[in-house]
Every structure is written in C-alpha cells, then in structure tokens.
C-alpha cells in the first residue's frame, strides 16, 4: 500500500479510533442515529424560499405599527386649528368691489343708473376706509 520506499510508515495505532472495537461501534452508531434524527427533523420542518421573507415581514409589520402609533399620538396631541372665516369669493379675492359683483350676479338687466350708484358706493366705502 505504501509506496514510499525510503522511510517506514509511522505506527499510529495508539491514535486509531477503531482500536477499541466496542467504543468505535458506539461512536458510529450514535452518529447514524443523530444523522437520522437530523434528517427527520429537516424533513418535518421544510425551509421554503419564502421562510426568510416571512421572518423579515414580522419585523417590518412591527416597525410599521410603531410608526403608526407615534404618528397617531402626534395628531391627537396637536390642537385642531380655529375655524377660519368664511372664505371670500374668487372675485372678492381679485379685488373687484362687492357692489359690482352684486350687479353682475343679479338676473335683472343692468341700467346705467345702477352702474353709477355702484361706483358711488364704491367711492364712499373707499373713502371711509
């Protein structure tokens, strides 16, 4: 078996695990039993490709719940803004006098006197301010 002809083999029989037959049988039997158990365990708990995703989703859901709780408590703690005054119409916002808006929004035909009155009221209100 040993084709190294220059030096004789070393006697390692003191380190030989098969030296004690009963002990060797016990060692290898235990290995076989444990291997069968490990195999049975892995077959009853198959690890699919989704297993890591499912494991991570728990942490993701927990983090999302924590963010939701913090955000909700912040919304509750901040007082609601005071109700604002009735918003002006677009025409008022643009600076068109209310008297002119009133004339424009009526269904009646506008006379020249109405227009003069509206300008008069606008002039008076501007002077009063």
């Amino acid at each position, binding site marked *: 078996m040993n084709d190294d002809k220059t030096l004789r083999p*070393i*006697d390692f029989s003191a380190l030989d695990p098969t030296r004690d037959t009963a002990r060797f049988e016990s060692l290898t039997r235990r290995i076989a039993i444990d291997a*069968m158990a490990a195999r049975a365990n892995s077959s009853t708990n198959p690890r699919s490709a989704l297993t890591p995703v499912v494991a991570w989703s728990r942490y993701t859901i927990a983090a999302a719940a924590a963010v939701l709780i913090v955000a909700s408590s912040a919304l509750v703690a901040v007082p609601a803004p005071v109700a604002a005054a009735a918003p002006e119409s677009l025409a008022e916002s643009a600076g068109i006098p209310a008297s002119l808006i009133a004339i424009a929004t009526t269904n009646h035909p506008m006379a020249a006197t109405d227009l003069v009155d509206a300008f008069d009221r606008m002039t008076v209100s501007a002077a009063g301010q």
Partner: protein
Amino acid sequence: MTDSIGGAPAEATVIPDAELVARATAADARALELLARRHYRAVYSVALAVMGNIADAEDVCHDALVRGLSRLKECRQPDRVARWLCAIVRNHARNEIGRPSVARARELDERIASADIQPEHALELQELRARLQAALAELTPVEREVVLLSDLHDWPHERIAESIGTSPGMSRQHLFKARRRLRELLGADILKEQFNE
C-alpha cells in the same frame, strides 16, 4: 470505494459507496451506519490533523458526519462520498479550532476512553498518544493530514491527493517530509514493525 476498516463487519467491505449512499438517502439506517463506519477513520485523520488532539477530533467528526450524512442528497458524486465527507469535516474542524465547547469535552472523553483498560496500560497509552500528538504538532497541517491518511488509514497517494487537492507526487513529497520529521522527533521505536514495500 470499498476500503476496509478495523472492526467493521464484512458487509461493509462489499457494498460500493454509491449503493450505500443511495440506500442511506432512502432512509436506510443500516446503510447510514455502514457509511459512518467505513469512512470514520479517514475523516478522523483529517480532523486530527486540524485539531491536534483525539477528543476534539472525535467531537468534530461526530458533528460533521451527522451534518454530512443527514444531507447525502447534496453529494453529487456518491462514489466519492469519502472525499465529500473529508471536505465537510475539514471545514468544520477549521471553524471549531479554539472554541471552548470543544475543549471541554476532552476530560470526559479521556475518562470514557480509558475506562475499560488496565491503569498501567492506560497510562502507557496516554503517554504514547501525547508523544504522537506533540510530534504531529511539529508538522505542517498538510503534512499531518497526508501522514495520517497514509499511515493511519492506509490510503494510497492517489486518494490522498484527490482529498487534499494536490498531485500524487506532491502527496509523496509531503509524506516523505512528515515521516522524516516524525522519525527525528520520536525515534525508530515508533515505526511500524512490518509493512509492504
């Protein structure tokens, strides 16, 4: 491969590895045990080369063989299962070096190992083991693995070279250096009495 081992029944030396692997994969516990017996000494040689002492080597062998034998489906070349198991044990052993959990098992193992032999013989055996382990520690890891696979497990250079990933020529060279160094350290009385040239 159908190499023989000490203490193994004749059945273990007849059935090829590929067939044993197929049976073991099909949940045949007996085939699993035969594989463990057949290749234990080879993987133990690898583990001992890395770990440096018997107790740690046996712990590593147990854990790595359980892992390997429970995943035989992953062995792509069932006729070369020994090489595959050796690789698993080698990697596991390298990961386990210096871990206290491995070192703790030593005392218990020595008690079990010497429980059924005479005290004077146990002492003599322990001294001899200590000398061998100390001498092996003086070699490089690859020299340790080659000399143990050759002189403890009787593997030819072709198989050793395949296992450690080198050429048969390099395996011979490692073996020559290892034997020469061990002879210097241990003397001629540690050489085998008879061997086939």
